[in-house]
């Protein structure tokens, strides 16, 4: 267990470094741009900052100081949990994110649920459908899903279910139906990645001897799938699920726009057009933190779930699962 503990500690340190680096990275990317966005925003009469407020904000961020001191100041604030103050609304960034976080988390969680259910259904179909062409259609679904822009899925759903069927109203984006369809739009591309890995693993497991033995005992395809193939095939999916977190967070940016929801995505959009650096920095490092923590958990839990890899660390098997699954899954994440 000593090896495992060392592995866990090493990964934890890496995770913290990655989150801090993401914060610095956003700062560098946004400050590298030509022009001085901060002054542009502050001096913009539209934003209506008084001279006093400007002096206060400039002093708070040390905007009159050289860039590396600005970075050091905001980074040390970040380390103490202070996400800073929005340049646009002059409100604490933590409050602004806190207001919209729940809506995005609900959407992302629902999207993930849709993705898992859909991927399982597709994978089950490829094993159980009797007709060869039916299996072929199901096998090509993931690559179709990966070829459709996710805002198109959303628009089609709105066109069909809001305009034609009248199941929900576009002006009421937080209703249950609207949320469900937003989750479907978000989940479909993600389900493709899960399904691809799942199908590859199922193919691999069904060629193993235990599957042949089970088949020779006269097990039905459905029973073989449920009792023997699913568990070994879905364990590597744990790590793929963790990798899709980024996809869910990035995708919610567009899905929220399509469905007119307020959330982190719409906050990012507003902050991008107003160059609200503190908000962008906070959202990016938060997204990186979520990604890193989820992947860390997946890596740490994996050896505990799968007895075959308990002896070593999870990293080798994780890589195998992802690479085997296809370039697509890895690349799209």
């Amino acid at each position: 267990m000593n090896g495992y503990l060392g592995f866990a500690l090493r990964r934890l340190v890496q995770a913290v470094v990655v989150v801090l680096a993401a914060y610095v990275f956003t700062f560098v990317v946004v400050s590298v741009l030509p022009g001085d966005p901060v002054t542009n925003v502050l001096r913009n009469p539209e934003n209506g900052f008084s001279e006093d407020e400007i002096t206060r904000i400039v002093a708070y961020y040390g905007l009159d100081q050289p860039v590396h001191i600005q970075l050091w100041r905001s980074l040390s604030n970040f380390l103490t949990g202070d996400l800073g103050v929005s340049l646009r609304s002059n409100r604490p960034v933590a409050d602004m994110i806190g207001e919209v976080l729940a809506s995005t988390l609900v959407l992302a969680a629902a999207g993930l649920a849709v993705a898992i259910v859909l991927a399982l259904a597709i994978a089950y179909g490829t094993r159980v459908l009797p007709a060869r062409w039916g299996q072929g259609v199901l096998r090509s679904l993931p690559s179709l899903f990966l070829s459709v822009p996710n805002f198109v899925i959303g628009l089609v759903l709105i066109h069909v279910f809001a305009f034609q069927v009248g199941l929900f109203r576009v002006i009421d984006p937080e209703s249950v139906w609207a949320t469900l369809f937003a989750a479907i739009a978000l989940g479909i591309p993600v389900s493709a990645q899960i399904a691809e890995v799942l199908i590859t693993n199922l193919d691999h497991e069904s060629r193993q001897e235990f599957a042949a033995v089970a088949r020779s005992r006269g097990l039905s395809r459905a029973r073989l799938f449920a009792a023997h193939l699913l568990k070994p095939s879905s364990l590597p999916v744990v790590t793929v699920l963790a990798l899709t977190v980024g996809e869910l967070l990035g995708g919610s940016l567009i899905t929220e726009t399509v469905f007119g929801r307020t959330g982190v995505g719409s906050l990012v959009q507003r902050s991008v057009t107003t160059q609200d650096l503190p908000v962008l920095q906070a959202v990016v490092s938060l997204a990186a933190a979520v990604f890193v923590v989820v992947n860390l958990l997946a890596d740490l839990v994996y050896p505990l779930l799968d007895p075959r890899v308990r002896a070593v660390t999870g990293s080798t098997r994780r890589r195998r699962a992802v690479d085997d699954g296809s370039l697509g899954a890895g690349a799209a994440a």
Partner: protein
Amino acid sequence: MSVAGLTTAEARESALDRIRSLRVPPGVALSFAVIAVVIAWSLAPGLFTGQDPVNGVPADKFLPPSAAHWFGTDQLGRDLFSRVVHGTASSVSSALIAVVIGVIVGGSIGLLAGFLGGWVDTVLARLVDVLLAIPSFLLAVIVVSSLGFDTTNAAIATGVSAVAVFARVMRAEVIKTRRAVFVEASFLQGGSHLHILARHVLPNASRSLLALAVLQFGLSILVIAGLAFLGYGDPPPASDWGLLISTGKDYLKWPWLVYAPALVTIATVLSVNRISRWLRKTD
């Protein structure tokens, strides 16, 4: 390896044989055909449509698809097919820019990390970890917002968001090849690092890199369309596919304004993905 002894006819025949020996499945052949059409659209849009993509006939607005207007007309009475065809060059070339940036920057990072190893590898690997941890679409949005909103910058941003993936694959390939016996042999025969890199490592890595580049090309079309959809690309009257779909979303009562450009986008990306899959399988 000389072909000097062959007549032209023989050479042509052997070239045909080589194509035939690749045994291209029908789906892949169809995909190549779709891509050929898309390339033709982007090179010479005027050959495929005589209608003006920018100035419409206001009286003809919101006409459904017909023989005269294959994709119908938009809110200003412009022929949608013409707009899609004329928007192809921008949509395709920006995806190309993104892939080139990804291959060159990501490839170099992966090459350096894998070939030099040691602390260079450690530092670059951490950098790639950071890039991977930021959701790639969010990364593209941040970068384009800092560069300024136009289609070229959206392409650059998309390329930046793909750097990490290329770096990771390149590094893995380089490390795999570097450990091979023939590389050791070449090294023992006095081959320099540069010689080994150019003669052994790069050719061996090129196949998986090519498949990834083709896949990323399709993905880049989607990401750039997404950025255009959010309004981070060129403004109208440009007619990038993502922008057309974005404009169409305000007129869902005339759904072809969304469906036509969307179908073109999907057909293109699907074909690109099919080709990438085939390139990987025929390894």
